[in-house]
């Protein structure tokens, strides 16, 4: 089973403060542990939302707002992609991460093709395949 683990961005992060040496060392150790357990497939950190943008869809119009975003609790600072045998295993791994008090980590399961089998018609699947092919080969 594939999971995405979403890590929130705190205030300091949003203001572009880089993590301290100790914090970074602890996180590096945790990442190493994930890699050595064969769990981590990918993981990236995100720039502060000041470098991002929001695009809003309304009444046929698209309105673009530059970052930073004001809704602090929606901010994402980074993510992991993990391969685990179960949701419980993913939770067990999250519990071991060196996050400070007050952090709330979100765990989400990644859809795999089989999850769509019930609702996908062959036409839909083909259309989606074509689409993916175009984006991949661009």
């Amino acid at each position, binding site marked *: 089973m594939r999971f995405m683990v979403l890590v929130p961005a705190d205030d300091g992060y949003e203001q572009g403060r880089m993590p301290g040496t100790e914090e970074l060392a602890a996180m590096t150790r945790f990442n190493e542990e994930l*890699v050595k357990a064969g769990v981590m497939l*990918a993981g990236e950190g995100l720039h502060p939302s000041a470098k991002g943008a929001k695009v809003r869809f309304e009444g046929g119009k698209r309105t673009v707002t530059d970052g930073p975003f004001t809704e602090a609790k929606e901010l994402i600072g980074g993510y992991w992609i993990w*391969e685990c045998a179960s949701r*419980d295993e993913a*939770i067990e791994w999250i519990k071991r991460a060196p996050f400070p008090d007050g952090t709330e980590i979100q765990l989400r399961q990644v859809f795999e*093709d089989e999850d769509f089998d019930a609702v996908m018609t062959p036409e839909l699947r083909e259309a*989606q395949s074509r689409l993916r092919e175009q984006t*991949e080969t661009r």
Partner: protein
Amino acid sequence: MPDPATQRAIDAVWRIESTRLIAGLTRIVGDVAVAEDLAQDALVAALESWPESGIPDKPGAWLMATAKRRGIDALRRRIALERKHELIAHEQRILQQLDQPDLVAQVDDVEDDVLRLIFMTCHPVLSRDARVALTLRLLGGLSTPEIARAFLVSEGTVAQRIVRAKRTLSEARVPFEVPGRDELGDRLSAVLEVIYLVFNEGYAATGGEHWIRPPLCEDALRLGRILAGLMPGEPEVHGLLGLMELQASRLRARVGPGGEPVLLADQDRARWDRLLVQRGLAALGRAEKLAGALGPYTLQAAIAACHARARSVEDTDWLRIVALYDGLAALTGSPVVELNRAVAVAMAFGPEAGLELVDALAGDRALRDYHLLATVRGDLLERLGRDAEARAEFLRAADLCANEPERELLLARAEAL
């Protein structure tokens, strides 16, 4: 009995901790069978006390301490009851080892224990079947019934295989260590072979009703990823990992809606798993950077990469694939590799050139009853318009093939001619 949620949480902890626990205990007591028993006892203790007390903050350390304490108690009781001297001596020794503070664990990396355990479970004194079963059990965390299901044998067979394997290791006094430079090459090959055997059984099942069994591929991938983390300087470890990641990226395109096999040429490439392709190419890159001359797994990964990079069959760099197969054939001398090379030659230079090579291989004893030789021959004959001969080859291939969905595909191809 713990409630289902606690049970699942304990299972998850066990999956994460069991390998390191067994590896650490093996280092202490020097016997993998004793170590596994002690680890199992600790799990039973966890099942008894965690539902009440909650899962401890450091479950790995809790399990290790409990395994040792329970082991010591049990041994003391047994020694008190025992009358035979040689047995007491053996148990006394284990008791002493358990009862000492574990100084090694404080200075040494526990991960090195896991690496030592891999080399032990893949030791050449064991038969191939035994290596696979023991590795899946101790490093993959699979239960005996799971291994039995994976290899389509009875639970009794697997259980016996594992018991015998542990006894063989103990009788042969196989040391708990990473082999030295002089034998590392051969011993590492044995480890890689076990992992790839597991992967292949998932990727192209040799028997049974399913053409692929993705959970087995995942177990093998996880072992490969663990090994790459433990031996980052070994090119072939990355080569094997790259090969498996690239092949696994095609898994979901490899079966049709009815469970039938879909061959590479007919696969919907948009369904390939891009994350695994990326990871495979990255692992191949690491292998190529580390290697002087490319080893067999790295060469196979490089071939898989040619497919992964191609948008279609026609778009594939078949010339490069032929060259890579040349290298692989020179290295392995394997007739199966020669057969694959013939397929690549047919793609690069036309079916006639391929058929010539296949015909030269047809007399090879190892390939005579190999269903893929007949399949390839049928395929090339079909492309040359020699339908009657092609049909006969597909029927012969179906006869030789033990995997049910694959057999049906061959019969359908014969039928269509």
